[in-house]
């Protein structure tokens, strides 16, 4: 059972609430202070992604955030109601990201794991390095979904995407301080 669970309607305004709750629970769970900013950002990215997917595909359905402290790791699982194959069809636009390949260390491993869930072998966010600096040519105002996931993979100790009962779940975790209770 999750230590704390938050369910919210898919509105951008509630993403901040989810971030605040996640950060508070992480702090209480003994996640190092220096990592709290990363928890805050990663959870925000996962929730933003879920909100955008719900607004596009199922605006009436809630998004669930489960925060679990298992004694060794602090884990956050954001579960949406949009099936992975639908959600990851949206990711193709990641090629347009002007910064080129995101520098998150584990990004490629994480996406390799994620790919089967979407039934699509393309690694999202893995834009060619030749695109770097091509911001003026890239017709994006809203960034591609894959970038948010790349950010999470660069921040969390562990990150995975998997099909949930009716949608997709994005799980991320951080090690706790060893001396915390």
């Amino acid at each position, binding site marked *: 059972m999750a230590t704390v669970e938050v369910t919210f309607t898919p509105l*951008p*305004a509630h*993403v*901040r609430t989810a*971030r605040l709750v996640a950060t508070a629970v992480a702090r209480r769970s003994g996640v190092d202070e220096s990592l709290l*900013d990363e928890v*805050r*950002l990663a959870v*925000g*990215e996962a929730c*933003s992604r879920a*909100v*955008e997917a719900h607004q596009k595909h199922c605006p009436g359905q809630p998004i669930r955030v489960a925060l679990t402290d298992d004694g060794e790791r602090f884990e956050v699982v954001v579960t949406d109601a949009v099936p992975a194959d639908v959600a990851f069809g949206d990711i193709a636009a990641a090629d347009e*990201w*002007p*910064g*080129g*390949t*995101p*520098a*998150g260390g584990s990004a490629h491993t994480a996406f390799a794991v994620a790919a089967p869930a979407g039934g699509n072998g393309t690694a999202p966010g893995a834009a060619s390095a030749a695109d*770097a*600096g091509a*911001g*003026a040519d*890239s*017709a*994006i*105002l*809203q*960034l591609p979904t894959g*970038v*948010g996931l*790349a*950010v999470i993979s*660069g*921040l969390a100790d562990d990150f995975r995407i998997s099909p949930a009962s009716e949608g997709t779940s994005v799980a991320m975790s951080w090690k706790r301080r060893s001396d915390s209770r």
Partner: protein
Amino acid sequence: MDLKLGHYNKDGIEVVDVEGEIDVYTAPRLRELLIDLVNKKNYQLVVNMEKVEFLDSTGLGVLVGGLKRVRAHDGSLDLVCTQERILKIFRITGLTKVFGIHDSVDEAIAARKAEK
């Protein structure tokens, strides 16, 4: 903390002061301001992010969108940011290669003037 936006002209460059959190909820307001400034023919922009407490990929998308708009008019969009936690997001996404990032508004303006 919500998002506060202000802007003023200095030496022919429009400086945008951003304070608070730029996320999926607040980013549309920054996007509207940047679009409005460009529509009013301000093509040299400096976005001061020294008082930004939170920035996510939605906010990055808005900044990239602003950059794209000013570049279409041979303009520029530079950033002022010294906060490590904000800079980290630009590094993770590779955007340090795309934006000029400076330590102060004066430095950003001086760098822009020197390039002309």
